[in-house]
């Protein structure tokens, strides 16, 4: 089966910025796909092209095997933007109905689905309340419901957890897993790396309008590992010398961080330590966190994008 979404050499230039500069990527069906990048990297512009709000200057978007048709395909996409909100003075039930109908659902269909979701999130009693009566967290829940109500094939969530307490965060997180399990694809945009590590299978990192990293979370971590291991021992590692297959990076009490030398492997380390008569309590590989990788890749570029003149 074809990928749900394929971007081919997308470009979008604004008067003062190359917002998206030749990005290609593929999102497979059922994936939870992390779209990462610092502020102003071009994530929102990229998403707005996928949701049909902007037309790309160049490049193609293939949605569900066909060329993306912004008018009809938006019914299969659910988008929760970072700048999100609801009509404050409108009743919650009517609001959910309105947004569902705009996505192309009939009144009857929408009603059944709203009831189902309201029941699931314990929101039944909210129907006649207005949004201004809701707390921020409640509003977020409603926003999430209206995003996924029409059972979109592709769900795009931009910072979905901002403003949510841990309990509601978990509720939404579980729902994201459920949706992915039942066949929806989720693009998850954030700069909160610990959430990405927890949720996403595949990530893409964009910076200054370009893609700088693309892979599964596992693969990316492997690619960026620095051969660091942590070792727990009973006695101090005092006898480490030049012929050891590793360098000692740091020690605290009886736990140590080492880097394995080029051409050596963990077994050689263990062998060496055993020969030294050191009792090993634990031996673990230290993989870099996505946060470290993110900072490493993005570091050195200015924190804010500079305005530039574009000759388009």
């Amino acid at each position: 089966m074809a990928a749900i979404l394929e971007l081919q050499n997308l470009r979008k230039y604004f008067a003062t910025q190359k917002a998206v500069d030749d990005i290609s990527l593929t999102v497979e069906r059922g994936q939870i796909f992390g779209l990462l990048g610092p502020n102003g990297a071009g994530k929102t512009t990229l998403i707005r092209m996928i949701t049909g709000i902007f037309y790309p200057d160049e490049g193609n978007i293939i949605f569900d095997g066909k060329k993306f048709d912004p008018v009809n395909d938006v019914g299969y996409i659910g988008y929760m933007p970072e700048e999100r909100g609801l009509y404050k003075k409108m009743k919650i039930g009517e609001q959910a109905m309105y947004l569902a109908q705009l996505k192309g659902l009939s009144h009857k269909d929408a009603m059944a689905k709203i009831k189902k979701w309201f029941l699931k999130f314990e929101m039944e009693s909210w129907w006649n309340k207005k949004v201004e009566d809701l707390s921020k967290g409640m509003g977020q829940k409603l926003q999430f419901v209206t995003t996924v109500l029409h059972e979109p094939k592709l769900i795009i969530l931009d910072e979905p957890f901002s403003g949510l307490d841990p309990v509601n965060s978990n509720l939404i997180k579980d729902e994201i897993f459920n949706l992915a399990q039942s066949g929806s694809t989720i693009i998850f945009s954030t700069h909160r790396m610990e959430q990405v590590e927890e949720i996403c299978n595949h990530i893409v990192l964009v910076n200054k309008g370009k893609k700088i990293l693309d892979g599964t979370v596992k693969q990316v971590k492997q690619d960026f590992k620095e051969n660091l291991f942590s070792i727990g021992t009973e006695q101090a590692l005092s006898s480490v010398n030049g012929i050891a297959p590793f360098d000692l990076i740091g020690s605290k009490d009886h736990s140590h961080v080492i880097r394995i030398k080029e051409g050596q492997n963990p077994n050689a380390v263990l062998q060496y330590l055993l020969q030294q008569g050191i009792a090993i309590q634990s031996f673990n590989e230290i993989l870099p966190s996505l946060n470290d990788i993110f900072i490493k890749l993005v570091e050195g570029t200015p924190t804010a994008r500079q305005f530039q003149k574009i000759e388009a």
Partner: protein
Amino acid sequence: MNKIWIIIKREYLTRVRKKTFIISTLLFPLLYLGLIFGMGFIAEKSKQNLHVAIIDNSGFFSNDAINKQNVRDNSSVLTLVKGNADKVIADYKTAGYDGYIVIPAIDWKEGSDSLFFKSNKSYGSGSTAAVEAKLNRIWSDIKNDSLQIDLTKQQILTKKLGVTPKNIQDENANAKTAEGIGYIAGFLIYFILLIYGSQVMMGVMEEKTNRIAEVIVSSVKPFQMMLGKILGIGLVALTQFFLWIAFILIVYNIGKASGSGGMATQMVGSMQKIFTSVNVPLILFCFGFYFLAGFFFYSSLYGAIGSAVNEDMREAQSLSFPITMLVIISIALMTAAISDPTGPIAVWGSIIPFSSPIVMMARIPYGVPGTVPWWQLGLSMGLLVLGFILTVWFAGKIYRTGILMYGKKPTWKEMIRWAFRKN
């Protein structure tokens, strides 16, 4: 298309169901009537009944002549001062006068246009006009007596020739009625453009401040979103307008049925006169057309501004000022058009799109094709349609960019650049 309907429905229902809609629908006719009667009442109240000392050096004024006129018209009291004139001039206040007029020693064959009502306060011309009129009537009596013109001759002399405009193409046309209808129609459109135009602007701003704009444009095109809002609010205005017409018809029929009460019969009578003297279906049709087309023309511009600014009301006001000015200029042109409905200001004002909704509506009651030839009406309508297609297109382009833009207030120059930017 279907999605525009959903938007129209929401925009319409949320507004019509609000209490403020019901209240404003009921209150507006009352306020309108109150304004008209209130202004007349205040104008009447602001006149003062003056007590004036007349110091006569000509010798023609007599107590009898003055009292005769004092009895006829009590809006001011004139008193002839004899003898102690200097004392009155020096201290007219303690003598109980508001001021005094010195009549110089003139002959009855002459007049004088340099008399002064002297007082240490300033009085409005409305108050002194009554005194002047009374003094002139006394002067006329003096002249009549001197010329020995008796009452019969006086009556003959006051007979005049009256000229009123009558349109021979349209026998029923009546300039006075046309003027009245022209004013009412022109002002109604003016109010609707300003009130509902700013409603469109506020509605768009609300979507921006609530941050719902991006949620909506991921389902519908920004242009559909804008058009849905304009059409929905236009329908609200239309609903309000029909309610008012229904209100007038109900009052009319109740008045006719009960047939009693001075005011009711008067109203019914004058309305019957209006219905027979003007082409009501044509006026209603044109009103509907100019109201809708003018609303599209202006509200799309107001919508564009709403999309460009942030939550700050002052930004919106300063940016929408040029557009509000256009509406106000139209009203100024309309006043000129009513006093001279076939003059160049009237003709051009009713053809150029920005002012045509208001100015043309003021001219149409004078008669089509008598005062407004068919070609002018056709040209005006055609240009207005072109005009609103242009403004809606232009506004759509600005809206598309503005609705997703947060941050600093754009200038008109930047907004025009948005309009010509590729998407």
